[in-house]
């Protein structure tokens, strides 16, 4: 009789629960016809300012809403409410990322059918959000000109897992001697083929292009589904 330890194959994804819920959310978003975009970046790279611009510009023609994640305070939601009526803050307490369950809970009483775009601003963090699918269609990763252009090399996982990179604070590029070519090269190194947008939320530079890209992505997803 074998008395040694037995090996039982399991092959189970650790974040299976999150992945399953994210898949349900994605199905729900598609059925409702709402295009969901998430934003990830380090703290202070301008996610909220960028989102404020996106919401106010898009709301001229589209029905928009946002969920915004932070460890504490409702400040970002208050700021964004100036640009869109439907904004909800998710305060995570000590948790450094959003997960599918938090998104699901936050959307509880929302009528998704009445929306065209839903934005999810993740907690400012370039590490932890990379492991959690939120059910979004598009993930944008932001990098500001005030950060080092080697950020993509330092955080390859989050850049690799995103769909579009957005370089923010372009109005400060000259002042910070931002190495634009180097930053673009670094993004391509860790995520070959990624589309890169350059914006300034302050001057509005690049925002029209950004809107056009989002509309095109939304159209493409509607053809597919």
């Amino acid at each position, binding site marked *: 009789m*074998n*008395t*040694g*330890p*037995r*090996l*039982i*194959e*399991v*092959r*189970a*994804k*650790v*974040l*299976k*629960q*999150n992945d399953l819920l994210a898949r349900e959310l994605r199905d729900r978003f598609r059925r409702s016809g709402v295009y969901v975009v998430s934003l990830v970046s380090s703290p202070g790279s301008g996610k909220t300012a960028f989102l404020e611009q996106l919401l106010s510009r898009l709301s001229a023609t589209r029905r928009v809403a946002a969920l915004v994640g932070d460890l504490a305070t409702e400040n970002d939601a208050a700021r964004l409410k100036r640009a869109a009526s439907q904004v909800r803050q998710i305060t995570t307490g000590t*948790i*450094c*990322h959003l*997960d599918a369950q938090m998104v699901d809970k936050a959307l509880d009483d929302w009528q998704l059918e009445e929306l065209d775009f839903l934005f999810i601003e993740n907690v400012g963090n370039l*590490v*932890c959000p*990379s*492991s*959690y699918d939120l059910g979004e269609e598009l993930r944008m990763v932001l990098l500001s000109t005030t950060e080092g252009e080697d950020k993509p*090399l330092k955080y*390859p*996982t*989050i850049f*690799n*897992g995103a769909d579009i990179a957005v370089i923010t604070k372009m109005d400060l590029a000259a002042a910070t001697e931002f190495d634009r070519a180097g930053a673009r090269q670094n993004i*391509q*190194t*860790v*995520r*070959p*083929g990624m589309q890169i947008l350059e914006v300034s939320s302050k001057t509005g530079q690049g925002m029209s292009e950004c809107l056009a890209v989002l509309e095109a992505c939304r159209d493409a997803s509607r053809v597919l589904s």
Partner: protein
Amino acid sequence: MHELSIAVSMVEQIIDESESRGGLQVEVVHLKLGVLSGVDKDALAFSYEIACEGTFLVGSRLQIESIPLLVYCETCKAERSPGSIHQIDCPQCHTPCQQILRGRELEVAALEVAA
């Protein structure tokens, strides 16, 4: 650090797995961890012990197998292993590779149980 959240999910999952099989006495948990999973090996190992406290997994061991990056090179029409996650291109022809075949794993591969 999100490794503690991940360790807690993992422990819950192993408990479910064990219960669905009629109660296993788990001694070793074999985990596959991709280099592009976004999870730090040491932080996870540390968190695992904390997550096990108060459960029957206390005293079990976490064995982490690191899974290197494997990509598909469109130029060579072959699977390739880039030397680092900071340079995701073909080590032979240097074509940037978009298709990642392995390296994102975060999965419990097997449980070693007392006979």
